[in-house]
Structures are given as C-alpha cells and as structure tokens.
C-alpha cells in the first residue's frame, strides 16, 4: 500500500509540473498580461512600466524558471490584478468549491440510485420509461436555465431561498440542488445500465437459486457491481467540479475556484492562472486516487467470499 501510494504521489508531482508548464504557456499565449494588469486608460508608457515591474519583459523561459524557483520556496506569487498572494485568493475559494462539489454529488447520488435501480429492474416497463423521460428533462436543460428558473420561482416569487451568495446553509440549497439535478440525470442512465447488466450475470442467478431473498441479492451483488461505471463517473465528475462549476458559480454568485480561474484566464493574470490550475490539478489527482481505491473496495470479485 505504501509503495503504491508513493508511486502515485510521484506521478502527482510529475503531473503538477506538466500542469505548471501548461498553465504558464496558457497565460502568456495571447493578449499581453502587462496590458491587462494596467488600468484600461493606461498610456503606452504606463504599460511599459507595468511590464518592467512585473518582470514580464524577461524572456519566457527565464520567467518560467523564476516561477519554478519561487514555487520551490512555497511562493506562488501575487495576483497581478488583485495584488495579494494567489494562495490567499485560492484558500478563500476552496472550501466553497469543495462544499458545492460534495453536496451536489451527494444529492445526485441520492436521487440517481433509487431512480436508476427502479428503472433498471422494471426494464421496459412504465417505471423505466417515466424515469428515463424525467432524466432527459433534467439532462437537457442547461444549468444556467434551470438555475435562473429556480431563482425566479424560489427566490423571487416564493422568497423561500436566497438567490446568491455564501452566507449560510440556505445559500447552498439552490446551487447544489441545480447542479446535483444535472449530475443526477446523467448518473441515472449509468445506474440503470449497470443494474440491467448485472441482473443478467450468472452469479446473481446463482444467488437467487441458492434461495437468497431478492432484496439481499439486489443490494449485495447488484448494487456493488452496477456501481463500477458509476464510481468512474462520480470520480470524473468530482474532478470536474473541483475545477469549479463555472456556470453555477456565475449564476448563483457562489465564490468558487471556477469563476476565479475564468476571470484570471480572461485577464491574463499569470500568477493566479498558474496557482489556481496547480491547485485544481492537485485536487483532481487526489480524487482519481480515491476513485481507484474505491474500485478495490467495491468490486465483489475482489473481496473475499
């Protein structure tokens, strides 16, 4: 186990290095970072000054090496535009991002598994069709549409939930619910397929033949196996969400990492882009590790007996 973890951690470092290079290139590739760090009414001389002060007049390889050197000392630089250490900005955004990711995924799982199992078990029947149409409705509506409709109904018309902000637990409901609904729709189909596949497996028939009660069969064998593609999907989704659910954050004014990063990219805020991408990369890689660990825990062909 330890060796495995060390191996994975070594890979993570490599991944982060690759990400840091890519982030560096990304931030420099078009538009002029010095221009965006200067105010909109800057004169060309002002822009030149800014370029010098921020070290943007050095050659790209030189800038990258300086950047690496600073990271080695734990210095992730200061945002050009916000003028505070990038870590300060990120640290403030990670808890809300994590909260939104986990809660929405939790909602998705809670909604998707019962519906997916029911649909898979009743396969071809009424429950299946109804479930699938509901799922489609949830899946085909973009998050911003559902989000704004939810706001119009629940915040403006009925005033039961707040529309935006990060002020209390009630503020989490709409964004996590909207996002969770969307994730749930996709997830249901995978649960359904997984259940159908597993119901056809030999060992399920065997268990039934042994005389085990149906429900026990379902939960112990079917659910676990059907979860393999689901776990993959959740793992991927979590990675995506840790990159920030950009649209959700924009609609609900949720202070997540996504909107910070979009803003940084669009404004060529080089240090912030780099730091944010590396932070996201780290969390995504950790999520992947968790998923792979879970494979082992879930697959019945791995456990004993």
């Amino acid at each position, binding site marked *: 186990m330890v060796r495995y973890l060390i191996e994975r951690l070594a890979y993570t470092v490599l*991944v982060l290095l690759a*990400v840091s290079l*890519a982030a560096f290139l990304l931030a420099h590739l078009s538009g002029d970072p010095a221009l965006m760090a200067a105010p909109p009414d800057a004169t060309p001389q002002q822009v030149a000054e800014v370029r010098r002060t921020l070290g943007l007049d050095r050659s790209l390889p030189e800038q990258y090496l300086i950047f690496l050197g600073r990271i080695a000392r734990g210095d992730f630089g200061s945002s050009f535009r916000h003028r505070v250490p990038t870590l300060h900005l990120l640290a403030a955004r990670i808890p809300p991002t994590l909260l939104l990711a986990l809660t929405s995924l939790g909602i998705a799982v809670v909604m998707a598994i019962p519906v997916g199992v029911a649909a898979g078990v009743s396969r071809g029947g009424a429950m299946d069709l109804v479930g699938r149409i509901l799922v489609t*409705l949830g899946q085909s509506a973009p998050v*911003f549409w559902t989000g704004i409709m939810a706001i119009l109904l629940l915040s403006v018309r009925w005033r039961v939930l707040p529309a935006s902000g990060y002020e209390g637990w009630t503020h989490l409901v709409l964004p996590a619910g909207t996002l969770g609904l969307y994730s749930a729709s996709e997830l249901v189909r995978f649960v359904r397929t997984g259940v159908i596949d597993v119901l*056809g497996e030999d060992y399920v028939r065997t268990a039934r033949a042994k005389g085990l009660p149906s429900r026990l069969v379902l939960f112990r064998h079917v659910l676990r196996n059907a979860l393999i*593609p689901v776990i993959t999907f959740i793992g991927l989704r979590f990675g995506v969400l840790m990159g920030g659910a950009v649209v959700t954050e924009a609609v609900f004014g949720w202070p997540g990492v996504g909107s910070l990063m979009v803003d940084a990219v669009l404004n060529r805020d080089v240090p912030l882009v780099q730091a944010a*991408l590396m932070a996201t990369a780290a969390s995504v890689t950790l999520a992947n590790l968790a998923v792979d660990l879970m494979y082992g825990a879930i697959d019945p062909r791995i456990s004993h007996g």
Partner: protein
Amino acid sequence: MAEAALAPPRVARVPRARIKLDWGGALGLVLTAAVVLVALFGPRLAPHGPLEQTLEARLRPPAFAGGARAHWLGTDNLGRDILSRILVGARPSLLVGLSAILLAGAFGIAVGLVSGYYRGTLDKVVMRVADVQLAFPAILLALAILAVAGPSNLNLVVVLALSWWVVFARITRGEVLALREREFIGAAVALGAGDRHIVARHVLPNIAGTMLVLASVSLTRAILAEAALSFLGMGIQPPTPTWGGMISDGRAYLAVAWWVSTMPGLALTLGVIGFNLLGDYLRDRIDPRLRS
C-alpha cells in the same frame, strides 16, 4: 462443459416479446428523425430569415401566447423570428456536437480498449496522460484555447473532443478491465484466439451497450457544452444561431420573455429525449448478453 464455457453467458430474462412494440424505441426514432430532418432542411422550412432584425418588434411573445401570427414562437432580443432561428440553428448545433463526440469517441474508445486489455506500462502511461489532462478544468482549457485560437467552428469541435475523449477512454477501460476477468475471455485465450478476434467478438459487443449510452449522453453534453461556452462568450459566434447559444442568450430575459430561452430549450429537450430513447433501444437490441 467446455462448450458451455465457450459460449457467451446466456440469459433467460424478461421475455423480450412482453411488449409487442417498444414505445420508447418508436418515440426515439420519430424524434431523432425529426431532428435530423430539421438539421438537413431547416433553412428551407424557416418562415423568416434567421438574421432578419426588426428592432421595433423585440421580445414579442409567441403566437399562441398572444403575439402576432407571423411569429409562431415569438421574437428574440433583436426582433428575429425564434422559430426560424431554431430551424436554422439545428444544423450547426448538431454538427458541432456530432463531430465532437465522433472524434472523442473514436480516439477515446481506442485508447481505452488498448489500455484496459493490455494493461502494464502502456496502461499506466495512458492513464497518467489522462490524469494530466483531467487536471485541467475542461471549461477553462476550452476557454483558454478558444481565447487564443479564436472561436471558430473547427476549434470548437476540437476543444469539445479534447475534453471528452478521456471519459470515453476511462469508461471503456473500466468495462474492459471487468470483462477480461470473465471466463469466456480466459477460455478464448486458452484456445489460442488472437487478440483482434477476442476484441471484436467478445469485448466490443459487450461494451457496446455502455458505449451507446455514453454516446447519447455525450451528444447532449456536447450541445450543452457549446451553450456553456456561449454563456462565457466563446461558443459558436453570433449571428449564427445555435440551440445552446439561443438558450444562453435568452436567459437574461427569462423573467420578462421566457420564450426566447425556453423555446430552443424545448427543441433541445425533444431532441435529447429522442437520442436517449433511441440509444437505449439500440443498446437493448445490440447487447449480446440480452440476446436469447
């Protein structure tokens, strides 16, 4: 005994003839066909030009909701006919979506197959590459590339494919990993069957089900990804109408002119219902584990 182990697992399950006509499949076929037809002939069917602006007739409601008869589904924020834009917008939306998932699927499934079947160093390397790419939030990568390269249709397809191939690869890999532990694969290997034969006859058919589901999910996701990119200003550029772009542009008016965003949304929903139902139907027919 040997024969039994060689044959694909048989399933005597829910008799397929329980429902004479699969309503889901039929509906799926009809809706998908409708969407395809609109994509092909939309511009000819449109009653107005999709780019015809009438600033004096902005945000007019649909005919059935009290508006003028000339505009069945109302007008948008520049006075353009929404029905015409939906009809014309089907093609770019679908083209981009389809191209993206074909590209992503072809590459992703191939990679996932190879990676999951052969395991070893190849698998490790591929998965790490996937990790590096996944470490970049897809929407950010898309945004950055489009900001640099310009939001052309081709760039959009590439960017969407780039963000989705990993999902195909990973899910394929997961399925293949589980499959290769099954006896019939082991038996086939013991009998000296070549890799290509095993993949073609045993692996591919068994993953086809999941792949079909994934494909129909991906098509929707691709169309909605274009909508999300429009939300950020990087989707297919105006004035070309796309369903995703129209839903995004109309969202500011949801409170006062709901039809601008919701009509294209309905078109999209109907299309998605069609793809999903059709995809599930095909999956049920194709999956060898369910053949009696």
